């Protein structure tokens, strides 16, 4: 049994306490350990993704217990790609946190950061629903600490809302798990996939309730309207690198929806039919519309970016709720794009903050480095609004193309295209107020000289933008890969048989070597 697949969870889990215990007062050591850890994660994740790229499904049985009884980790194309995405994003965010000095403004940034990575990686790799809940809690409790990093009243208040909303989400998750267990007697995803189909059609009340509850939980995580209320103020008040890392957290919700609703409650399952086109699709369209209207209406740059994240999650969910292989492939392409674009914009909003008292969209005297920041904002806004030539445009085309065959094509095209226009207006308005109008404001003579942001900060944003560029240039290859990923998701038999038919300790006692 190959042990590498558990490394993305174990490595940060060991590194974090080591940082707290051994390197508590040494910022330099903390930074180098953290960077080394994330670099190692990228290498491991790339190896895992390479291994899974030919369709291999890697199974890891903890303590060698066979599947429905023990907890398993499963690496297929989708989960290894999400792990790689997380590791790469984590690296860029960490570079920025070090460059901008955010990690020195409070205690334990690096340890919490590692715990956060551990939770996200675990959520992507686990093959067990209760284990998914546990990893959700791990990533949430680390995110609570990161969210209020560096303190401040506004941040603490937003933190209270964030924590309470997520606590309610966790309670709902437990209710969903309880009802699933009561109906099927298992929480292993592969085992559930078989048992759910065995429920007779006139006894599906319980499992239908469970499916809807579970969808609600994941929709809270994915910030789907009307369950998005936690996102704008918490992302806007969180420290910028943390908000950038949180860009992957909404994708955890999207990932969970893709995983659970392709495998356990597939679209052709009688019991849960109508869940997606009747409920998920309108909610997704509403998210896209509200997110982009929020971009136009926002009075502060950080809120604007937060609303654009809601909008792009709406786009992802539109594509997911089609539940066709084309739709899922498009949504996976868009997930990668939206993660990088959202993170880029959050980091840029922090670059804008350098030298300004706040992020209100009002003209203020230009400061050092404003020209470069403006250029970066221009690129980031193009990516997020989905204009050519960047990957947002390609992603949007893929979503539109995937929805062309459905009955609701008019609605989807109308909402996507109108909201794109609104978001372009919103970003253009923000950019022109922040960067152009500031030229006409006389500089304040007695204001202290503000140095431009550190080169490392720019490097981190530059790496993210380069990744967006690569995502555009290699769009054909990436989309080809997400198509094979979707094909793997829509034929879950190899996954189920790998998980359930692998003997563990219970079925055959193994010889001792």
């Amino acid at each position, binding site marked *: 049994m190959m042990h590498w697949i558990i490394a993305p969870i174990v490595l940060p889990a060991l590194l974090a306490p080591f940082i707290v215990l051994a390197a508590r007062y040494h910022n330099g050591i903390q930074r180098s350990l953290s960077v080394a850890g994330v670099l190692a994660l990228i290498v491991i994740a790339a190896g895992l993704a390479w291994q899974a790229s030919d369709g291999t499904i890697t199974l890891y049985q903890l303590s060698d217990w066979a599947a429905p009884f023990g907890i398993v980790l499963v690496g297929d194309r989708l989960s290894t790609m999400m792990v790689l995405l997380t590791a790469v994003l984590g690296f860029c965010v960490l570079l920025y946190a070090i460059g901008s000095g955010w990690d020195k403004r409070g205690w334990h940034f690096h340890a919490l950061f590692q715990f956060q990575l551990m939770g996200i990686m675990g959520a992507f790799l686990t093959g067990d629903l209760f284990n998914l809940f546990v990893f959700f809690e791990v990533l949430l409790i680390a995110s609570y600490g990161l969210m209020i990093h560096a303190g*401040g009243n506004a941040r603490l208040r937003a933190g209270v*809302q964030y924590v*309470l909303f997520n606590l309610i989400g966790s*309670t709902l998750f437990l209710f969903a798990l*309880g009802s699933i*267990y*009561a109906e099927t007697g298992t929480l292993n995803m592969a085992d559930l996939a078989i048992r759910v189909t065995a429920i007779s059609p006139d006894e599906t009340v319980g499992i239908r309730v469970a499916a809807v509850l579970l969808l609600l939980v994941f929709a809270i995580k994915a910030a789907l309207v009307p369950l998005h209320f936690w996102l704008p103020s918490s992302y806007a008040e969180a420290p910028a690198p943390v908000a950038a890392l949180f860009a992957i957290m909404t994708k955890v919700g999207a990932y969970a929806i893709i995983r659970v609703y392709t495998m356990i409650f597939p679209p052709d399952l009688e019991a849960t039919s109508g869940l997606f086109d009747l409920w998920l699709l309108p909610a997704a369209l509403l998210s896209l519309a509200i997110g982009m209207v929020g971009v136009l209406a926002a009075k*502060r740059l950080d809120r604007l970016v937060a609303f654009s994240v809601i909008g792009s999650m709406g786009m992802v969910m539109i594509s997911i709720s089609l539940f066709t292989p084309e739709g899922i492939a498009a949504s996976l392409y868009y997930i990668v794009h939206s993660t990088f674009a959202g993170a880029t914009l959050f980091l840029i909003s922090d670059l804008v903050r350098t030298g300004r008292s706040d992020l209100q969209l009002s003209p203020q005297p230009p400061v050092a480095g404003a020209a470069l920041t403006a250029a970066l904002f221009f690129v980031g806004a193009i990516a997020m609004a989905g204009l050519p030539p960047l990957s947002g445009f390609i992603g949007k085309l893929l979503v539109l193309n995937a929805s062309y065959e459905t009955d609701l094509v008019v609605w989807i095209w109308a909402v996507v295209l109108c909201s794109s226009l609104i978001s372009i207006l919103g970003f253009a308005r923000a950019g022109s107020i922040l960067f152009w109008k500031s030229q006409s404001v006389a500089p304040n003579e007695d204001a202290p000289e503000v140095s431009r942001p550190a080169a490392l900060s720019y490097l981190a944003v530059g790496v993210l933008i380069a990744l967006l560029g690569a995502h555009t240039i290699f769009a054909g290859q990436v989309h080809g890969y997400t198509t094979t990923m979707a094909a793997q998701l829509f034929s879950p038999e190899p996954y189920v048989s790998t998980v359930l038919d692998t003997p563990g300790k219970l079925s055959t006692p193994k010889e001792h070597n």
Partner: protein
Amino acid sequence: MELLVASAIGVLTSAGLYLVLRLRTFPVILGMSLLTYAVNVFLFASGRLTVGAPPILSDGVAVYTDPLPQALVLTAIVISFGMTAVVVMIALGAYLGSNDDHVDDQPEGLQGPEGDLS
């Protein structure tokens, strides 16, 4: 037995929901605790209610109680306990910092003496 457990879950959940919808942090946190108690009992009951039966294999026993929900409940209790402690600390920090324990966003001008610090 079933009626007792079911109504206990129902009462706890409804009281918890009512409190969660309050405006100030203390009742909201109390409501969260009630909700987590409710969900713990619910999880416990999800393996069916069996009285006086052993959870592990033993000789000469025909009826067992499901051990898995008990393990799930233990995990859930630990997690919800830790989370409640975290939210109490953050809420205390927010309250002491801005002298205001509202959960919702206050309109501009109605905030504590410090105002909006962002």
